[in-house]
């Protein structure tokens, strides 16, 4: 067991750059706005949420424009993060042990790199869902250009993506905030503590530490 010096204890690591944080929040804020207005259109019991956007007609006008901002954010996010998101052998071991992760049995979770396999899978799911959202959304934005049958299938696809994205968002927010204290600050000022990095992303921590030593 390594003895933590006061120096390493208080050391902080930069996890996300300013640009990465901005892009993350463009995607995050627009996605929540899209989810709320979209669920309002999907469930009569939630129609009151259109009030948050200035009423039903305003929500209908704004929804596709939120989608445009979301789409641009997603494209940038995919471009800047994709090379870190391919699964390696370590990730496959992590996935095989995902049960221990869920049950907080940290000793039996294989060490993760900058992103664990769950985060990588989340990235890929959201990327695929974003494509489904954007393609079907364009159809629904300009319904007069398409036949009723096509639009019906687009409504179905758009909703299916909502269902997937909604569930993933709950998991993402839960794990990134209350479940793991010290995580959310990575998306606020961009930093994490040395201790947090060593615990959650040991391979990344080792890389960063080694590069600093060299």
């Amino acid at each position, binding site marked *: 067991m390594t003895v933590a010096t006061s120096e390493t204890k208080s050391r902080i690591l930069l996890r996300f750059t300013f640009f990465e944080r901005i892009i993350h929040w463009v995607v995050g804020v627009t996605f929540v706005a899209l989810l709320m207005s979209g669920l309002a259109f999907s469930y009569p*019991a939630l129609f009151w949420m259109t009030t948050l956007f200035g009423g039903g007609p305003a929500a*209908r006008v704004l929804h596709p424009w939120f989608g445009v901002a979301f789409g641009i954010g997603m494209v940038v996010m995919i471009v800047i993060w994709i090379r870190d998101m391919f699964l390696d052998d370590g990730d496959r071991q992590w996935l095989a042990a995902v049960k221990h992760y869920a049950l907080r049995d940290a000793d039996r979770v294989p060490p993760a790199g900058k992103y664990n396999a769950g985060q990588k899978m989340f990235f890929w799911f959201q990327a695929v869902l974003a494509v489904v959202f954007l393609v079907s959304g364009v159809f629904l934005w300009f319904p007069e250009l398409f036949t009723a049958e096509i639009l019906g299938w687009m409504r*179905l696809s758009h909703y299916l993506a909502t269902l997937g994205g909604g569930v993933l968002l709950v998991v993402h927010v839960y794990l990134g905030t209350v*479940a793991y204290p010290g995580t959310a600050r990575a998306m606020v000022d961009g930093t994490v503590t040395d201790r947090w990095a060593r615990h959650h992303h040991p391979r990344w921590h080792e890389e960063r530490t080694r590069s600093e030593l060299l």
Partner: protein
Amino acid sequence: MTDSLTIRRVSASPGALIPMDALRSAGPTYSKLVDISKCIGCKGCEVACKEWNDLGVEPTANFGSIQSHKDLSPKTWLLMRFNEVEIEGNLNWLIKKDACLHCEEPGCLFACPAPGAIVQYTNGIVDFNQENCIGCQYCVTGCPFDIPRFDASTRKVSKCNMCVDRVESGLEPACVKTCPTNAISWGSKEDMLALADQKIETLKARGYDNPAVYNPAGVGGTHMMYVVPHGDRLEDYSLPADPTASPAPMTGLVFLKRLGAYLMSFSVIGALVHFLAFGPERLEE
């Protein structure tokens, strides 16, 4: 026969799919019956519709047809379509009175996400309530007859309302009132079905082989029915042979939304339960 506007269905409400008129004794259920064989193509009904509903003039130009306008619009709720079809060597005008058919099971109402933007009265009329319309045009998607029209400037959808204000006062719709040959009849749905049967017999006696009543079952029947002289040529009249109020993707969507409500709720509950079981993670040194 007074006719209160008793609500039968309201869009985007839990009971949208379940008619609620069982709660009150329903008044009469009306229907138009359009006998295409008696139409002389005068377009008086188009003018009457414009006048009664204050829809204003839409300039048009000759595009090689006797038809007045190319298509319905937010200001043109009724259009007599003159489809030119050759039958047994002769040119025929297969006329269609193109306007809302007021389906018993309205696809527009089922598709609408805005509470109260579309209502169906027990008298059979399906009416758009523009003050509740959010301009999403899902009704356009849901209508198997391509009737609702979107106005981009007001971002509202409109269509024939069967002159609901006249019907409420015990009058017939303006198009019925004005028709000089009585090609459009008005009365209770049962009376119109009986009249349609008589008209079919007359047409058969006149030598038509396949006259038919157009009252499609896929939308639960309509409150504007047609007597079609060439019942084997529905598509030539621009009448879909097998329209449905609940096409496959919409049926799938209803199921998925229910499933989605459970899954999304359970994901929130699941996160809460997990948090109560494990709490925030504490890192020990």
